[in-house]
């Protein structure tokens, strides 16, 4: 009896000792910081991209971006959406789903492109997922010593520096954009006709015989003054209707579509070409005048500046500032109103007239 008890006690002790220790689940939790994620998961988990996430969710594209594949996606962050006037998820929800989906598809392209894989040139054309081309320009300037620090623009919008570019993910690469890309289906004429702040510009184009060209010419670059700019010089729909085109020099209003000459100029091109402000002779030449859309970015305070200078070449070959209008004009409301890409050209909405019509009478 005693023997049996001892055996039992021994077995019980051994059994308790063997089973008594706590058995932790040794599977480590998923490390969200090192496990490669997809583009969709990255956007989902990034507070700076919450508006982009809302837009992707609304259009059903977030799941698409979680699928295997090889993409380059240009992601506008919340600051970029805010600059466009989209401040919250509620604003995103108000947008038209189809056009929003088109716009988001316009921000992606096939294959992985890191900053260093873009050719060292202007306007490298790539088809976007939506169809129309994206123009990727590698600028002369650089934000640092390495090749990854080169300034790169997509359709006139800067790719953010530092850790906001070359984000390598399972199914592609993300570059964070300074501003959302803009594309309007249709021609320059359709764009101008649809924008209610450009009604006076449309009236001028019709009056001076440029209206049809806005539809047929390709490529075009148009600086379109907003209605307020015309009103500033006393031009209303009524007074435009009464204008006699023959009384004005061709450049008075011909300057806005650059006399319809083939041009394809984004707001950042001048900076991409020279790395600094563009010299007069390298600007867009229209008769004796040179239009120089400058662009500078300060990495120090993360600000952009974009005055459009106008110069005139005098008889002695020397350049001087615009003699018939303001020295500089600006994009209306900042760069958010520049680089509206359409099927046949680029529209920049500006806040002032380049030439004072009164000074451009014959």
């Amino acid at each position, binding site marked *: 009896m005693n023997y049996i008890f001892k055996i039992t006690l021994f077995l019980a002790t051994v059994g308790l000792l063997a089973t008594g220790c706590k058995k932790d689940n040794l599977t480590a939790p998923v490390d969200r910081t090192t496990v490669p994620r997809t583009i969709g998961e990255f956007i989902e988990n990034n507070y700076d991209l919450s508006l982009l996430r809302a837009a992707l969710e609304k259009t059903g594209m977030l799941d698409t971006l979680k699928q295997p594949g090889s993409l380059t996606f240009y992601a506008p962050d919340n600051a970029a959406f805010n600059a466009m006037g989209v401040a919250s998820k509620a604003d995103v929800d108000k947008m038209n789903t189809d056009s929003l989906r088109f716009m988001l598809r316009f921000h992606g392209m096939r294959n992985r492109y890191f900053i260093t*894989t*873009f*050719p*060292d*040139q*202007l*306007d*490298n*054309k790539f*088809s976007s997922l939506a169809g129309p081309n994206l123009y990727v320009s590698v600028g002369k300037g650089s934000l640092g010593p390495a090749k990854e620090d080169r300034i790169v623009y997509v359709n006139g919008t800067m790719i953010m520096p530092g850790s906001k570019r070359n984000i390598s993910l399972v199914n592609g690469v993300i570059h964070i954009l300074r501003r959302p890309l803009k594309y309007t289906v249709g021609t320059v004429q359709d764009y101008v006709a649809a924008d209610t702040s450009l009604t006076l510009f449309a009236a001028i184009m019709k009056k001076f015989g440029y209206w049809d060209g806005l539809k047929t010419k390709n*490529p075009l670059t148009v600086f379109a003054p907003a209605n307020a700019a015309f009103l500033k010089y006393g031009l209303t729909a009524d007074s435009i209707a009464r204008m006699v085109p023959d009384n004005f020099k061709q450049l008075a209003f011909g300057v806005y579509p650059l006399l319809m000459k*083939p*041009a*394809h*100029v984004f707001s950042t*091109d*001048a900076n991409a*070409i020279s790395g600094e402000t*563009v010299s007069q*002779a*390298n*600007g*867009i*030449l229209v008769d004796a005048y040179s239009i*120089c*859309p400058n662009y500078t970015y300060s990495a120090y305070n993360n600000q952009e500046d974009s005055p459009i200078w106008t110069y005139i070449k005098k008889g002695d*070959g020397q350049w001087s500032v615009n003699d018939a209008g303001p020295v500089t004009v600006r994009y209306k409301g900042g760069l958010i109103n520049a680089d509206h890409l359409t099927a046949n050209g680029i529209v920049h909405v500006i806040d002032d007239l380049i030439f004072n019509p009164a000074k451009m009478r014959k």
Partner: protein
Amino acid sequence: MNKRYFLFIAMVVTMMSCRKTEFGNVENPAYLRVFNCLDFNITLDNKDAPQPYLTMLIDPVLDADGIPESAAIIGDFLDKRGEWARPYPDAVNTTTWQKEYPGTLKVMAGPILNGYDLSSWAQVPSGKHRIIFRTRPYNTTPFFSLEKNLRGVSLIDTTIDLQTREVYTMHVLERDYLTRKTGLYLRNENFVKQPFSDSMVYVNFYNLSSEGFFKYASQKIDHNAVPNRKIRDTMSVFYSITRMKGLQFEPIPGFNGLPMGPVIRSQQSHVNPYYNFPLFPDTSASRVFTGNIGQLFRFYGQGLTPETAVNSSYLPQGSYSALGVGDFGYGSGNQYVPFRIQADLRTGLIVSVHSGAINPRSFATVNTIEYINEKMYVTTIQRKYAPPVY
């Protein structure tokens, strides 16, 4: 026993150690050297135009859309040409982008022909060839690895006829200054057939500027630009041989402003006559130059000479220009010597290298000076010389 093993191993090693090299061979070769002479300044106005970064394709195969898929001979990464075309490829240069074809590409180079070192020429099969020059993006991806939509546009698509064992220099040139039309220029060089003395330095001149260059090139005088870089269609060349004295160059007595001949703008592919100057004009320097010698070529408009046009500042535009070859300093030039090309480090158009027991030893060369749209280019061809003895 051990000895037998050793012998066996020695036998195996001996049998395996011979190197079996397959030597490349080009049947009936012609010798070809190619320069991309297109040069343009990107502005907002012309940024959509094709840029002059080229790929040369000889006998290409095109797909249904006209995009090249392969080619018999590829001269990829053809950059704008350098101001001095060296007499031999720069062996330590490993850059991808080439300033000429073949440059430092691993191709069958030309032989020593009649004593001239043609190692800067590539051997290509003679006969008729289709040749295409296509623009390409400025990156380091080989042309046929590029996506098809990035394979540029054809600037030139033509046929050339190369004769056996002839030496050719080919340029991609701008034909018309206003339309920016490009064209191919093929020159059958004849220096290998001429009885040139090895104690004379030979040089000939071309003005390969585009049609209408002087008339339409900007007439404005830019205060930042070096003046006197634009020349008229007909100019006369006068040469001076200079040496360094103190910090100044002074002409060697008897070699100041001597006439050479005319330079007339033409893109016809004929060889212009060679002029010469002595290899050792300076009798005071043991007849061996160890440095600090240069050649100055001055270009004067018709009717002007170094005697009549003393102050070049007051001449009409296009009437004066000059090219200093040698150590004329590092500046971008001034109104008196607007073009400066160093060429050989010590002696300009004369090649000075370690040869035999002498270091340096000076050798005469055959040179070509080409003026193309406000740019000056020098090509130096050297003779074979004895290797150095250390």
